[in-house]
């Protein structure tokens, strides 16, 4: 049988080495089971720590034979166990080794082995499975192909501390979220999880993972405790169902008479291994974000948060600092009080500045290994720091100020915007976005550092993920008081924004039209024309019929901003009057909420303020009837908006006011005005009286 495998592998370089390796493989085919066993044991000793030997044996076809022996019912348990051990050893090698093992369908074979009654064999299989599943090349889904596997693994949890350790480790590696890398920023759209069927967390949860693993948190074995904890950190991540169960499930989960959060808090103690502190902080963070623990609970405020801040300190390993900062960013993202506490804890804001100093000039000189290590983590560190700065500055003006005053902060953000790593760019934009919510900073540091330039660059051909945040930042930079507004427009922002409104991505459409609305606010004629030209009438109508009410509102807002000041109104209405009137009619007739209708009536009021544009309303009986209708609407806001229209139309200092007044009186408007002047609503009452006065004059 062995000779079958020989032919394709005649590589001269390998020949010498493979000779000895082949001997090992050949012995697997011996007829005497005792000799086969000895062969496997010798092979085991030969491959330990020897990657070359491992590769050779794989090339020579040892894997299928080992799997065959492992699966044979006739094989002795000892032999089967040794086979699993050797396979596990092979899996410890390179990623290519794992790939080869996967190609030989090792996973079903090992899962089958778990049904054996022999504990030693089961442990060997689990150990091998563990090694395979923690490899990045193994698809996690392979664990979930057979529904019975998970429940069997849950049952095996009680067998020994080794089954506990390996199974927990398998679970925590086979439960990854697909948006792992964008840790914590829910506000942005994420790709959907496994479209078919429930996600991994839910599967494990439904098999009683919480109850089965909880008691392992107090195991006497550190490894078991740690793997169980990791398991929970993965299970609970962004999963409210798991998180709630951890705190107060229907069947309260108690371990040694304590609730799980108490156990996690104990694991946060400062003399515990850093890995344990960090992982349990992640568990508590997930539980807090899921709403299972209040943000003002002392275990969050006085334990989890300070622990995560400590993880950001210089004393920690680079990996730990990255994870600590990301987790902290997630914890405080939506709670201003936590943001405030974090901002004063252990000089966090200054501490984070250190994240940008890798690779340091020292490491470059002292040793190459350190440089390599630093380089590897430099991107991760930077993006983590940006994320945390973004969370810190999300709501509080003082914190934003402190961040920007940190050494070279704006320069770092500007540099971050043009980094090659998407992750860093994204995080930098996020940070910029957070800081751009400050009016003061927009006027000062943003201007001083010409932030808009790299931002505009980021917007070119960026992936949607970045575009969403960048365009949202641009919205803020385009606010009327922002000194960046002008240069941004000059660099072609309108065209860019108009193109965003055509995006499939809802968030991009909203941001695009929102930014245009900001641009149009009190803008000069030329800009308004540019917008209209860039957007095109069709696109404008498209947006007005957008299914998303946010898009609709911002589009109406844009229209309203465009139709301000008399000359602009007349100009725009002279060119686009017909379409605009059509759109307005359409919306007023359609099924929309109060805010939309109010906004539309305000647009009409603006049109009514024009000199020539007035006629477009006066000649449109349909519209006039609608205005009349809204004057008597049950909602005061709509009544008021309609009154603005009337008021503008009957204003008697303007040309042709007499005719308009007459026409409206004939329609019965004056009667309504009289009625409204008796209204209990002071606003309506006032407005009605002013309108009536126009008739008297």
């Amino acid at each position, binding site marked *: 049988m062995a000779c079958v495998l020989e032919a394709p592998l005649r590589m001269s370089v390998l020949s010498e080495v493979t000779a000895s390796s082949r001997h090992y493989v050949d012995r697997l085919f011996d007829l005497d089971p005792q000799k086969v066993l000895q062969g496997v044991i010798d092979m085991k000793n030969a491959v330990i720590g020897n990657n070359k030997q491992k590769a050779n044996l794989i090339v020579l076809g040892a894997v299928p034979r080992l799997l065959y022996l492992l699966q044979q019912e006739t094989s002795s348990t000892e032999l089967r166990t040794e086979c699993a051990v050797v396979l596990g050893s092979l899996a410890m090698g390179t990623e290519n080794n794992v790939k080869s093992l996967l190609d030989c369908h090792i996973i079903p074979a090992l899962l089958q082995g778990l049904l054996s009654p022999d504990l030693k064999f089961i442990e060997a299989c689990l150990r091998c499975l563990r090694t395979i599943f923690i490899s990045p090349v193994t698809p996690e889904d392979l664990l979930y192909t057979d529904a019975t596997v998970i429940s069997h693994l849950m049952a095996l949890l009680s067998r020994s501390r080794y089954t506990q350790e390996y199974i927990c480790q398998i679970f925590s590696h086979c439960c990854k979220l697909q948006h792992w890398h964008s840790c914590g920023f829910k506000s942005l759209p994420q790709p959907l999880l496994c479209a078919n069927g429930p996600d991994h967390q839910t599967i494990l949860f439904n098999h009683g993972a919480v109850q089965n693993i909880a008691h392992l948190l107090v195991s006497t074995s550190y490894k078991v405790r740690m793997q169980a904890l990791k398991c929970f950190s993965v299970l609970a991540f962004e999963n409210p169902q798991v998180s709630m169960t951890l705190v107060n499930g229907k069947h309260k989960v108690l371990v040694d008479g304590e609730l799980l959060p108490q156990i996690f808090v104990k694991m946060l*103690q*400062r*003399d515990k291994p850093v890995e344990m502190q960090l992982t349990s902080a992640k568990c508590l963070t997930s539980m807090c974000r899921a709403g299972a623990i209040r943000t003002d609970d002392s275990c969050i405020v*006085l334990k989890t948060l*300070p622990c995560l801040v400590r993880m950001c300190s210089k004393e920690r390993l680079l990996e730990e600092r990255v994870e600590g900062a990301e987790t902290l960013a997630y914890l405080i993202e939506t709670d201003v009080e936590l943001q405030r506490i974090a901002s*004063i*804890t*252990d*000089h966090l804001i200054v501490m984070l500045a250190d994240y940008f100093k890798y690779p340091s000039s020292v490491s470059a000189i002292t040793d190459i290994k350190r440089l390599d290590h630093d380089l590897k983590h430099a991107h991760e560190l930077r993006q983590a720091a940006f994320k945390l700065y973004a969370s810190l500055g999300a709501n509080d003006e003082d914190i934003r100020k402190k961040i920007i005053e940190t050494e070279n902060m704006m320069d770092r953000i500007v540099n971050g915007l043009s980094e090659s790593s998407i992750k860093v760019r994204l995080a930098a934009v996020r940070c910029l976005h957070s800081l751009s919510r400050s009016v003061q900073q927009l006027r000062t540091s943003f201007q001083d550092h010409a932030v808009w330039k790299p931002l505009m660059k980021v917007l070119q051909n960026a992936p949607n993920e970045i575009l969403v945040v960048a365009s949202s930042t641009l919205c803020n930079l385009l606010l009327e008081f922002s000194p960046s507004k002008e240069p941004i427009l000059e660099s072609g922002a309108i065209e860019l924004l108009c193109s965003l409104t055509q995006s499939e991505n809802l968030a991009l459409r909203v941001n695009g039209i929102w930014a245009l609305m900001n641009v149009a606010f009190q803008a000069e004629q030329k800009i308004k024309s540019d917008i209209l030209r860039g957007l095109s009438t069709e696109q404008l109508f498209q947006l007005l019929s957008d299914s998303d009410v946010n898009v609709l509102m911002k589009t109406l807002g844009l229209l309203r901003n465009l139709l301000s000041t008399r000359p602009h109104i007349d100009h725009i209405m002279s060119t686009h009057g017909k379409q605009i009137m059509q759109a307005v009619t359409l919306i007023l007739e359609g099924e929309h909420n109060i805010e939309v209708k109010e906004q539309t009536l305000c647009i009409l009021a603006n049109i009514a303020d024009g000199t020539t544009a007035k006629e477009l309303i006066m000649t449109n009986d349909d519209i006039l009837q609608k205005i009349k209708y809204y004057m008597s609407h049950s909602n005061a806001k709509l009544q008021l908006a309609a009154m603005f229209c009337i008021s503008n139309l009957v204003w008697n200092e303007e040309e042709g006011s007499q005719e308009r007044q007459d026409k409206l009186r004939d329609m019965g408007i004056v009667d309504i005005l009289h009625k409204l002047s008796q209204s209990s609503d002071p606003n309506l009452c006032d407005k009605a009286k002013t309108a009536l006065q126009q008739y008297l004059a």
Partner: protein
Amino acid sequence: MADAGAGSLHGGDSALSCLPEEQELSQRLRRLYPAVNQEETPLPRSWSPKDKYNYIGLSQGNLRVHYKGHGKNHKDAASVRATHPIPAACGIYYFEVKIVSKGRDGYMGIGLSAQGVNMNRLPGWDKHSYGYHGDDGHSFCSSGTGQPYGPTFTTGDVIGCCVNLINNTCFYTKNGHSLGIAFTDLPLPAMISNQFMELLQEYIQHLFKSNLYPTVGLQTPGEIVDANFGQQPFVFDIEDYMREWRAKIQGTIKRFPIGDRLGEWQAMLQNMVSSYLVHHGYCSTAAAFARITDTTIQEEQTSIKNRQRIQKLVLAGRVGEAIEATQQLYPGLLEHNPNLLFMLKCRQFVEMVNGTDSEVRCFSARSPRSQDSYPGSPNLSPRRGSNNSHVHSTGADSPTCSNGVLSTKIKQSCSKYQALSSSSSSSSSSSPSSVNYSESNSTDSTKSQQHSSTSNQETRHLAFLSFFYLSDSEMEMEAEHYPNGVLENSSTRIMNGTYKHEEILQTDESSMDNCPQRQLCGGNHAATERMIQFGRELQTLSEQLCREYGKNTMHKKMLQDAFSLLAYSDPWNCPVGQQLDPIQREPVCAALNSAILESQNLPKQPPLMLALGQASECLRLMARVGLGSCSFARVDDYLH
């Protein structure tokens, strides 16, 4: 065990204070700073009514501070220091201040200052003064200009100040949140450098100048703050911070590099164990150890056995015989050590009173009652004691020789056992519990239980060595041919510290209560006369020594104490009755053993004990010179 030790160490101050708050404070302080010897270096407990500027008013047990000056400008600033400076042995020290009212402007400073720093100032403005100010959140490091440090603080906030005496830093907390390092260069001794002794001098001088006191300063009317020196639980989890540092320091010790000389290191450890065994005369154990570890023993077997014999005699209370044996085996030794001889003779006298010395026992050996009644009777082997009640009839010389002397604890349990078997009036619970007690004191309880179940307690002295790699079989073999563990008591005591000693004493007393029929010199008239005769000889010896070597107060005291025993009708229950305790034989025995070893040009103390003593002394020294890490590396933590 460590708790018990700490408790006995500072038992004084809990006894002084009877108020529950005071008690809680004392408890918390003991728990937080177990390494601090509060008699030597008291901890701050309140603000000092003497060490303050007169614009400061104190109330509520000198914990509340209020401002009573004009508060016009910075010249009206006023501070107060705590009653005591922060002892270095705290390792990490922490106190909190609650802002009751920010007053007019909230110019409050919280921090540290050395004695003598001007109190008409806020903490931080002057040399050896450090502060964190509420109005601007700046930190002031011996300077009039502050550095941006943390948030501002005001009414309702709780500000904490933590001094880390290990790395000489200080950080503050606000409402339980650490604000990060404020000062990195506190004027406390730096780490040990090469010129250790030289620096030591400097440090000590330095310390007198710059020991830091908790300090607060106020500057405008209406400002009121309350201090918490441990009266209440702290808002910040300082114990968690301490845990981190304890782990750090213990990690440093654990990982301390012993270099490439790993072989030498092991040889050194083996040598230490071996020399310890030899020193105390565990001759067969030492031989077995030497065989397994392939090392050699410096001293000859016979020499060890001789010493062992003498020690046994002393510990059995047969001091007269011990003196004889010493004179025979080491001629000239006692002649050259008159002080030692005198000490031995004094002890001999005490043992005569006790009825144990052979010179008086020859008169009383046939009195079963006296044998029975004396709890520490050395000539009861455990085997006999626990196996039958005929002990009194055979309790003469020969078994004593073959079985050697028992440790005090074993003796106790035996005597109790006897009491139970001979008199039904003893409470039934006392007997088993006392047996268990003696077992649980052994370092390896499983081993000792195993032995005691077969009534073979001879190897118990080995139990404490079980952490060295003697295999079980070696231990068993050892038990067969090696006689009793003579020094188990002393070894246990040394290994576990003094508190254990006290526990033993207590049990002794209770066991004495159970045996009311003790009599002078075993109740024998002839023996009493011999004793009085001996007393006269002793008196003569004392006078002779006095003539030759001049007055010796120690001798005088020894003699006085010994003779005082005769002044009481029941010497065992008199103010000087403690002398009769068999445990008092140990120092005498150790002194004799050391003297013999010294005369043979061998170290008078085993290196193991030297190392232990060195470590303890080093820690004490560290505490004195202000090296805070001593508080997290206590010798007790390493003795299990």
